[in-house]
């Protein structure tokens, strides 16, 4: 671990002030500390935000929910309103990590956790995300867990979060504060960048911009579900996950919010897939068409080719379930 300065912030103003000109916030530390020990991340200065007053879950005026950035994954999953109105979020959280980790992990930290790409973690390997311009060892390496959508020739890493996938399906917005005190709201869909030729730049946040909350609109109509396919029954990241909020009304699909994890460098939601489905009568053919649209640009890298058929199957199963259809034998 490289020596670093440590500042404990007392309020959001002092946190963003301390972070001005390059610093790294530390919340639960469940991701950051591992990376610092390996010197994959080597910040000069840590700003501890755990004393900030960002731990509340409150109703918003429009009937939604405001989740403070420091609410732990465990508390969020167990919250009554979340379980009642946003069960997909609860399920996604509980499908992630372990009980011990969820007790420490925070809402803000979860959104900004780094990829689990093995080569990113290993400083003996080339990695454009860790060391821009050094190359991408995952291409031509072991890439079973890597992306099939949204990747570039410079980086094929996935975003590993389960929580963010559910939040995306729920149309969440992210509230932030910058050093000049300005507050901003952005759709979660706009928070993460695709790698392009700069995979080290993962979000649109400015230097020192602090996530203060995540805001959900009022409870959506329709059937909510979270599916996660993984390599063991618990404590494994998603190979493919799907958060779905699907409403079928008068025999037609009225809403189909479908967000995927494990597929792409960011939680993945494709408006064209939803456009394909909405207004249509549920059928196997329709679901196949939606999968075709979703996977139209999918690209495997060898070990992860299976994610393409797996994604199709998971998508169709979720749609069938929401529409009350049986899987044909």
């Amino acid at each position, binding site marked *: *671990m*490289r*020596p670093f300065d440590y500042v404990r912030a007392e309020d959001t103003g002092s946190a963003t002030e301390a972070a001005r000109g390059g610093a790294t916030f530390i919340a639960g530390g469940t991701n950051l500390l591992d990376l610092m*020990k*390996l*010197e994959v991340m080597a910040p000069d200065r840590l700003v501890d935000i755990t004393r900030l007053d960002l731990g509340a879950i409150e109703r918003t005026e429009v009937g939604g929910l405001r989740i403070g950035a420091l609410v732990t994954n465990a508390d969020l999953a167990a919250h009554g309103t979340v379980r009642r109105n946003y069960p997909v979020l609860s399920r996604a959280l509980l499908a992630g990590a372990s009980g011990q980790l969820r007790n420490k992990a925070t809402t803000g930290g979860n959104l900004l956790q780094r990829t*689990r790409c*093995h*080569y990113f*973690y*290993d*400083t*003996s*390997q080339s990695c454009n995300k860790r060391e821009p311009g050094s190359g991408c*060892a995952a291409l*031509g*390496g*072991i890439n*079973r*867990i890597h992306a099939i959508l949204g990747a570039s020739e410079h980086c094929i890493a996935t975003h590993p979060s389960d929580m963010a996938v559910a939040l995306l399906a729920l149309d969440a917005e992210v509230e932030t504060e910058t050093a000049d005190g300005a507050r901003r709201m952005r759709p979660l869909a706009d928070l993460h960048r695709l790698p392009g030729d700069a995979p080290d730049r993962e979000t649109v946040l400015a230097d020192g911009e602090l996530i203060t909350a995540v805001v959900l609109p009022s409870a959506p109509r329709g059937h909510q579900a979270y*599916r996660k*396919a*993984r*390599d*063991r*029954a*618990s*404590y*494994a*990241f998603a*190979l*493919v996950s799907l958060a779905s909020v699907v409403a079928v009304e008068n025999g037609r699909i009225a809403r189909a919010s479908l967000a995927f994890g494990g597929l792409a460098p960011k939680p993945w939601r494709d408006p064209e897939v939803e456009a394909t489905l909405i207004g249509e009568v549920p059928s196997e053919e329709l679901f196949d068409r939606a999968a075709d649209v979703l996977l139209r640009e999918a690209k495997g890298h060898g070990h992860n080719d*299976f994610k393409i*058929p*797996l994604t199709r*199957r*998971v998508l169709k*199963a979720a749609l069938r379930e929401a529409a009350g259809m049986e*899987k044909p*034998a």
Partner: protein
Amino acid sequence: MTTQFKMDAPQRPLLDRTEQGVIHRPLDRPEGPLKVSGRAHYAAERQLPGQVEGVLVRATIARGRLAGMNAEEVRAMPGVLGVFSDERFLRNPAQGGAGEAPVQGVREIFYHGQPIALVVAETLEQARHAAANLRPSYEEAEAQVDPATASDVDRPDKRRLDQGDLDRAMAEARASVDVTYTTPPHHSAAMELHASVASWEGERLTLHGSYQMLKYNKAELADSLGIPEENVRVLSPFVGGGFGSKLGISPEAVAAAIAARDLGRPVRVVMTRQQVFSMVTHRTSTRQRIRLAADEEGRLTGIGHEDRVYNLPDEVFSEPTTQSTHFLYAGANRRLGQEVARVNRACTGSVRAPGEAVGMLALEGAMDELARVLHMDPIDLRRRNIPDRHPEQDIPYSARRLADCMDQGARAFGWSPGSRREGEWLVGQGMAAAARINMVAPSEARVTLRGDGTALVETDMTDIGTGTYAILGQIAGEMLGLPVASVDVRLGDTDLPPAAGSGGSHGASSAGSSVFLACQGLRATLAERLGCEAEDLTLKDGVATGGNFRADLVDLLSGGDLSEEGKFEPGETADDASQAGYGAFFAEVAVNRITGETRVLRMLGTFAAGRILNEKTARSQCQGGMIWGIGAALTEELSFDPRDGHAVNDDLAEYHLPVNADCPPIEVHFLDERDEMSCPIQTKGVGELGISGAGAAVLNAIFDATGIRVRDYPATLDKVLAGLPD
């Protein structure tokens, strides 16, 4: 006095006639409270005065020479006390039971991850940061990292067998299978990281380490450093899991000793989890071709089992993949053989049940396939092929209750294969036989009856989490007529009589026999003092009776200690009979029709492994073994990079050991058995039996549920998915 005994003839079960009644009972482990309250000190928890911290640095090329490094720059970093890079450093750990140094040296690099330097600093953080800043330079050479394409391949004679004419048997068979199974590189991933604290007093080295076979480790350490064995003491009273990865002395011990000597301060070196994955031995991948030829009744006429494994150049160890194929099933025509590919990858060595752990995965899968070809129940097929005498050596078997295990296991499990649907899941059942050779090794112990009527057992035997403390106390208690609370057991110190160590499941039998023998000597003395024949002596709850006499033990001792050493040696019974533990595994699995994920719903194992010394610790061993079976079947695979051969998924987030949610209720049953050919206490190995075949039951169940035969372990969802209908 010493009671010496060599196992040249079958031994009658004296332990069935003693009276204390503590053998076999499911007693708690006596050191349990120390462990759960943090008072059992493991190697890395040693804190000696003046102790400093060392961090190992690994090579980042697969093959070549170390040209130099920026050692001066790193020495100048805060807190740094020294940068060591010494030709005595170990390239890789010693193999189990070697008793001498493994390949040494840092100049020549054989694999990515080889230790090449140790950075020592006042604090761990300083040492770690300095180590990260040590930049070696290399002259790179061409490496071979893929066992499938390696050009340097050995075919060891000791693994070759050609008996009869297998090709002809295959051609003439009424039913046959010719299939290739593969198993991936596998890591024991013990919870406790490998760690050593080295300190010197003059010429004498004391090493607090985490090791399984101390008398060998002491010799290996001395040889590595070029010092006399008498000057080395190794202490490992508690070991947080070994599974073979702590059999031989490993790099951190030698590096710590060298640095401690130079600095004149105790040095602690703890491997990181990532280092453990490359610096200690792991299990090779295997590619196994199995051929089975049978007549119309399912009687085997031929067995072929040929495998390819890998190891570093110059390592004599190779996975004995076909070990149980030699004796498990009949068949006159047999061909066994092995290829060892020499590759630039981390060292392979013994991992829990070397041989059977992977060989049985293939053999028992192939047997299931043959049963399907014959439309026969897989238990019937196996029963029909239990040989009368060893099919290659023409010797008898010692106690062997394979058929009973299968029958009783099937009944207890409710064996009823056949696929059924439950919502998104397909459910099916599978079974496999369990077999693991039995071994014993020389072992010594000292037992002292103390004047106050308590006893002390001393040996350098280790308890790697298996229950050695418990069973040695039980044996002494039983033999001396004492409750276990009156017996203290001291282990894990090379100043004590040298034991077999923990490896090859031979610890309980070997060390247990040495304690038994010492107690026999004590009983003879007590009988003499009482005035009766040794055979007539009964010891129970501190009272001795025999002939017409009766006395309190304390009175017989009249205030003095009575000490006896027991020395056990293997003998002719090892060659006179084929000895193995046997059992049967049953698994019920559910396979998700959408994703191909498999969950084990329940599992059962029935075992016959001679006398069971402690029903609780033995059960834990078998349950643990079956959990390893689940890992082998479904989740565990160490991936090596196809270009530089480094271990890729080298942490516990990405190396997928089964977690609790992967482990269903696991039932374990033991059949009553005594093996009089094994050792004077009629026990056989238990610790490895529970894994030997377990994973095959899971994959056979996947076939039963889905009709998909996965031959490439582990059966991750992608491999099942490929066979599922849309």
